């Protein structure tokens, strides 16, 4: 007997209904028009299997629709799959696809999804983000070249039925399927023209908007896809994405009315923005953590007292209030609050100790470890080039100075920074992580031994690893959450990373724009948006 998992029918039906209602309401506001969006970065590609950044997501995310897709609040709702069932053990999903077609009229079938999943995992494709799908049985082996793509456990039972088997129960799987790595790509076009399939004359999509023109470093232009199954609900006729990265210039363009939505703004402008554009400035909690990994394998950072002291001596509130000022949340845990099935993240036990006392405790810890005024702790703090990273690092270094630690600042450009982090060539460095999907595992796996390079500090705690392994095979969401919380507790005790703050999303949205809803993943699908 197949059991339905938490994301129940009722909830989906209600969400879908609300979505339709909201869209209809929005749709009755003046329909049509062109929305001009500053997506804040040039896409590396329009092929969903080749992209890996938020800026590409803004463009590609309305050209294709996966098995599930997002509603205006970025919650997963049915996409190409109109319904599904899940097995008792949570490892087998069977999707029933709706009748739909590609933008050239070719009907969409389950085979398109089989082809797409095999393609992104095929080592020949060299897709950067393929590892996100390793939860699918056989995916890792295929991507490593150890098995043929056909061995992937994604099978078309018939034209409208797709079956996917997972390696373990993953409550986040339906949310994961909204991610662009799981988008379908047109087999019939790719087999014909290969790499050229993303050129405007060839490109075929299954989403609400299709490609008109892409001039590199200028703009990407999309227009309504009439073959989209829900095309009547679409308000905007056209979308133009400007890819400029200079945030000061983008802000000026917004003020001059040349842009309707800017997906980022410079934090140091917040004072000015709150005063002059209060209704257009949108700040919301954003699922990510800004932290300083410590290289726990080099002396003296093998000593937990030193790591703890460094973490305690940072006045996160001062950083958030004075340096950032955009309402970020001081972080005392690794996982941000508000993550699905994870009510309260585990925080450090000294969170509520007043700062002055913490400084003293930190100095004492350092003294215990053998460091003091006549033997100051000296090391290098690395960060990659960016205004914010610099200001936070400067502030932190001055806080460490207050407890007698001499930290030298070392700024390198992003390639060098991450190359060195990969080699473990650092002592303390700056890093950040934005969630790929709404689940604590996406954060906590960064501290597992088997994770490799993304565990920058190479923290290795067998107890932690075991807890995470156990959680992976537990289908009871309560128990699973508990196990992960216990693991997080270990990490907060050991402080292999110093959490600094949890992100906020920063957007500028013109008052003419309707349907742009703040959400913790900062995902905004333009199909729900209209212009007043």
């Amino acid at each position, binding site marked *: 007997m197949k059991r339905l998992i938490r994301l129940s029918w009722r909830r989906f039906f209600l969400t879908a209904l609300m979505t339709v209602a909201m869209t209809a309401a929005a749709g009755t506001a003046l329909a049509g028009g062109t929305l001009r969006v500053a997506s804040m970065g040039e896409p590396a590609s329009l092929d969903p299997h080749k992209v890996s950044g938020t800026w590409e997501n803004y463009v590609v995310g309305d050209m294709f629709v996966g098995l599930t897709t997002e509603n205006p609040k970025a919650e997963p709702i049915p996409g190409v799959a109109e319904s599904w069932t899940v097995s008792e053990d949570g490892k087998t999903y069977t999707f029933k696809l709706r009748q739909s077609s590609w933008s050239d009229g070719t009907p969409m079938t389950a085979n398109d999804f089989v082809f797409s999943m095999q393609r992104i995992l095929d080592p020949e494709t060299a897709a950067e983000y393929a590892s996100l799908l390793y939860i699918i049985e056989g995916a890792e082996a295929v991507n490593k070249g150890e098995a043929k793509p056909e061995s992937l456990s994604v099978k078309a039972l018939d034209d409208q039925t797709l079956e996917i088997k997972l390696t373990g129960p993953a409550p986040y799987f339906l949310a994961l399927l909204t991610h662009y790595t799981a988008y379908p790509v047109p087999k019939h076009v790719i087999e014909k023209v290969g790499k050229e399939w993303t050129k405007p004359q060839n490109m075929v999509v299954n989403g609400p908007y299709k490609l008109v023109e892409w001039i590199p470093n200028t703009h990407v232009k999309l227009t309504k896809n009439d073959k989209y199954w829900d095309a009547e609900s679409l308000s905007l006729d056209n979308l133009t994405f400007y890819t400029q990265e200079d945030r000061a210039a983008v802000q000026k363009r917004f003020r001059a009315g040349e842009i309707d939505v800017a997906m980022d703004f410079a934090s*140091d402008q917040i004072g000015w923005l709150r005063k002059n554009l209060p209704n257009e400035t949108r700040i919301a909690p954003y699922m990510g953590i800004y932290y300083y990994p410590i290289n726990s394998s080099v002396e003296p950072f093998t000593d937990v007292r030193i790591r703890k002291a460094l973490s305690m001596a940072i006045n996160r509130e*001062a950083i958030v209030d*004075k340096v950032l000022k955009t309402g970020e949340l001081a972080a005392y845990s690794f996982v941000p609050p508000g993550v699905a099935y994870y009510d309260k993240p585990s925080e450090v036990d000294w969170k509520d100790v007043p700062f002055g006392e913490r400084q003293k405790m930190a100095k004492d810890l350092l003294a215990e470890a053998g460091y003091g005024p006549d033997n100051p702790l000296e090391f290098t703090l690395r960060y990659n080039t960016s205004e914010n990273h610099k200001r936070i690092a*400067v*502030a932190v270094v001055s806080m460490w100075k207050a407890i007698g630690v001499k930290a030298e600042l*070392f700024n390198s*450009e992003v390639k060098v920074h991450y190359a060195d982090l990969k080699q473990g060539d650092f002592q303390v460095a700056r890093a950040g992580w934005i969630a790929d999907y709404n689940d604590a595992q996406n954060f906590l796996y960064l501290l597992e031994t088997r994770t490799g390079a993304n565990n920058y500090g190479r923290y290795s705690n067998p107890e932690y690893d075991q807890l995470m392994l156990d959680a992976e095979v537990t289908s009871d969401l309560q128990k699973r959450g508990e196990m992960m919380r216990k693991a997080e507790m270990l990490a907060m005790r050991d402080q292999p990373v110093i959490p600094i703050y949890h992100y906020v999303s920063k957007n500028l949205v013109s008052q003419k724009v309707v349907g742009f809803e703040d959400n913790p993943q900062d995902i905004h699908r333009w199909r729900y948006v209209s212009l007043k």
Partner: protein
Amino acid sequence: MTAEPFKRDGLAGLEEAEFVKGRSLWQDARRRLFSNKAAVASMIFLAIVVLMAVLAPLLSPWAFDDPDWGYDFPGPPNLELKHWFGTDGNGRDLFVRTLYGARISLLVGIIATSVSLLIGVTYGATAGFIGGRTDNIMMRIVDILYSLPFMFFVILLMVIFGRNIFLIFVALGAVEWLTMARIVRGQALSVKKKEFIEAAHAVGVSGAKIITRHIIPNVLGPVIVYMTLTIPQVILTESFLSFLGLGVQEPLTSWGVLISEGAKQMESAPWMLIFPALFLAVTLFCFNFIGDGLRDALDPKDR
């Protein structure tokens, strides 16, 4: 300009004559320079800036790398708190940082230009003096290097060798020496043909002595002028590198870094841009006016 009459007693007098003639040339030039009001004013301004930079720690109670947690980040100029230029995005006093920035910017300008001077003059004088095939090959190399996009190679050097401030000097100097070499070589070639060189040759003065005692003093004029005009260029190049994020490491700062930060906040925190930019502009103006003055002063054809 009058020269002392030739002393006809012996051939040694020729060398003597040359020296006497040279000295009055310099005096003449100095007179002309100091009558150039813009140049004089510039020299005074520059001296003030240098003095302020050297005396920076004495001129303000704030350290250049300590945030003032009690005040706004960034905060406008505030006389009570002794933040005469205000504070930057990290709450650090801008007046002190502008002066420390002066140190770095001026140092970079002078040292990089000196590096380019050293390489360029040696290279150019040698090529010009030796002449012939060696000159051809040496200048060919310069032509090839000229065909490289400078900015790209500076960036590459910065990226390969890290952000050591010493390497910034070397990288910038290594890129600017080409024009210096060309100028020096041109001068060396034309001076080489002059009669007094032939005379010195005839007398038996060694090649090395000819280069150091005769060619270089005559070449020095354009070289000095070029130097005073290169320094501002180097300072600007350093500020461009800072804009790209490749400048000096924190907590050190330069005008380039300060201005890049200020430009991003020109509306919300204009003091962050105005003060360092003013210092930069004035300094660059000074160097340019001094350079122009020197050129006018040293140019023999000028009335």
